[in-house]
């Protein structure tokens, strides 16, 4: 088992760095090429969410990302200091298209619209994307854990 730990200041600019590191380690761990886009997106969502939480609650505390290369799996765990906002299910992705796209008030002007996608949306995207993921609330905060098979010689039926 090999582990890479990345700890970064909660700034949006560092999320890209986190994605790149995760991608490099995933590739090295033997995650199938077909899954790398999924790894990149899921890690990005998890880190963006953590950065957002830290910026509102604990801007001075670093976000931690653990990358674990086990024999036949690759695990990414992103830890933030915040409480879990709500339980997550793929149902959260069943957005009301009409509500989502109702016209903005014409006088909305140049003000940024408030968050257009519901809180927890990023996690819901991960759950819609990654077969094996879990979100747990622990003493030190919320852990988002995602697991991918890391050996392309494994038969698909092994799961």
């Amino acid at each position: 088992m090999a582990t890479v730990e990345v700890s970064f200041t909660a700034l949006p600019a560092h999320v890209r760095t986190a994605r790149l590191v995760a991608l490099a380690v995933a590739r090295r761990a033997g995650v199938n090429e077909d899954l790398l886009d999924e790894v990149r997106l899921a890690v990005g969502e998890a880190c963006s969410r953590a950065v957002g939480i830290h910026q509102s609650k604990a801007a001075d505390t670093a976000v931690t990302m653990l990358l674990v290369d086990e024999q036949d799996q690759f695990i990414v765990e992103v830890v933030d200091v915040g409480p879990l906002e709500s339980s997550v299910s793929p149902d959260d992705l069943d957005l009301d298209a009409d509500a989502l796209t109702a016209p903005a008030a014409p006088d909305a002007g140049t003000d940024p619209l408030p968050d257009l996608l519901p809180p927890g949306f990023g996690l819901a995207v991960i759950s819609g994307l990654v077969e094996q993921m879990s979100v747990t609330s622990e003493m030190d905060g919320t852990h988002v854990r995602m697991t991918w098979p890391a050996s392309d010689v494994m038969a698909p039926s092994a799961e």
Partner: protein
Amino acid sequence: MDLSLSTRTEGDRTVVTVGGEIDVYTAPKLREQLIDLVSSGNYDLVVDMENVDFLDSTGLGVLVGGLKRVRAHEGSLRLVCTQERILKIFRITGLTKVFPIHASVDEALAATD
């Protein structure tokens, strides 16, 4: 790769060509561009995403925000995208029901529905 943005007018529509990565860091730049276009009277937008390498839910939020703004003026926001990795996030979030997605800029410019 950072975000690149350029705009051009085609008839009564405005084509926004986006390249690079749209994420939590770069999405505000795209949001500003869309706000600028709408506030200067461009309500029919075509966002060409063929050179977008990465799009996350922050980027989706900005596109939805753009759609809401143009709809306030009875306008439209069409996307051009054929890349499977980008289309996937629209599909899993159900946003394919919300955005008209076209295979080329020409197709998006010709679309009237």
